[in-house]
């Protein structure tokens, strides 16, 4: 990933800054700049998510791309944030402990690295709460 490509997503990835449509009240994370319901009638504003939610589904990744191979095995999940939207993220938990419905909260973690001299990708993982 290019430095600019990573840099422009820092607020979303580090602090779960997403969006909300003021017209219909729906929350978006990952952020959308266009409301699928209200379309051009919608007004999109920034929203800081609390970072609490629950596990909807999960897997344990045992074989990954080169960037993530050093992390295997790791727990990957779809997390539903309390505000409603769902996102894909790692859960920092031993593989045997993960369960559907488990309450989780966000933490700031290293996600991956671009090789030995590339940038280090930080972002959001979740832990049990």
């Amino acid at each position, binding site marked *: *990933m290019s430095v600019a490509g990573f840099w422009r997503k820092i607020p979303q990835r580090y602090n779960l800054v997403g969006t909300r449509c003021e017209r219909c009240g729906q929350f978006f994370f990952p952020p959308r700049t266009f409301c699928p319901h209200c379309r051009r009638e919608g007004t999109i504003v920034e929203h800081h998510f609390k970072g609490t939610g629950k596990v909807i*589904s999960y897997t344990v990744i045992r074989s990954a791309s080169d960037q993530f191979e050093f992390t295997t095995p790791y727990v990957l999940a779809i997390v539903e944030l309390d505000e409603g939207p769902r*996102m894909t993220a790692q859960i920092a938990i031993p593989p045997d402990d993960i369960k559907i419905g488990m309450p989780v909260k966000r933490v700031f973690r290293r996600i991956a690295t671009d090789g030995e001299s590339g940038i280090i990708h930080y972002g959001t993982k979740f832990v049990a709460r």
Partner: protein
Amino acid sequence: MRDVAVIGVGCTTFGEKWGASFRDLFVEAGALALDDAGLAGEQIDALYVGNMSAGRFIGQEHIGALIADYAGLAASHHIPSTRVEAACASGGLAFRQAVIDVMSGMEDIVVAAGVEKMTDVGTGTSVDTLTGAADREWEGFAGATFPGLYAMMATDYINRYGLTREQLAQVAVKNHYNGARNPIAQFQQEITVETVMKSSLVADPLRLFDCSPITDGAAAVVVAPLERAREFTDCPVRVLASAQASDTIALHDRRDISTLDATVEAGRRALGQARLQHRDIDIVEVHDCFTIAELCAIEDLGFCAKGEAGRVTEEGITAIGGRLPVNTSGGLKACGHPVGATGIKQIYEIVQQIRGEAGKRQVDTKIGMAHNVGGTGATVVVHILGAY
């Protein structure tokens, strides 16, 4: 709008074809399809080619032109040639573009091909490239792999519908049985449930034998107006429906994680176009990139209720000789999955079955359905073909 027929088909063998280049593959498939239709290259009006990621796999873009060139139709005839991309649904979509071209009256003789050369890169790179079929920024970034995304569908499905691990394995066992009867299939060996259960975990609960392989291969079909089809073949196969639907790029944004709404919608549209009911369909080629995907497909296309496909598979209903044979070709699992070629290979299989040319895996077929999925279900293409 005109009726459209398939007048010729061709397919390379699928596998790890170290000796064959991208160009070798599509030239071979194209020549086979033209031979089958009894056509000369200069009779072709247009070419469509489904290809997911030649840019990542072999560093080559501009595939439409490359294909026209190496088919010998660029410098001499300058025929229009267009690459179509929708990840693993690229082939099905290329076929649909060819059908639309002929249906509209814009062109008469159109070739739809699909090709992928995947084994020139290592596993890590191919895993990363395939992740591009999902949401790179919000799934891939977090460490999602393709097996991982389908594994999350499987976890959700097992939790809600009580599917057993053995039932999931039955899908692979059936598809390997069929692949062992298909001369183009990558895997020619039958396997047992135990083979699946003993294979290594890739992304829980999916094991290696739940996953389609990395494959090189190409397939091509020729379409023409139905009214002209008998100029080229004694057994034209009619295109009864061509439907396509979209859904969110990311799995996490879906209404229901283990239901592919785009499959539901494309299937419904296709049956509506063809004015057919489920009971009219004799065989289905579904997009079984993972065992769980075949179960979801059978249900989402409406052949059984949600949660029933595991039992249906276990009872042999989807096997050759069952009431609704699914993936007689061996599917993506055993026949192999050269991503851009898969959708065309599905058409190739159904045409062979309708013509009665499927050899040891032949089933009595008048009408067949092909279901091709891009990503985790963000693009779905469904075609229905029938004897004429």
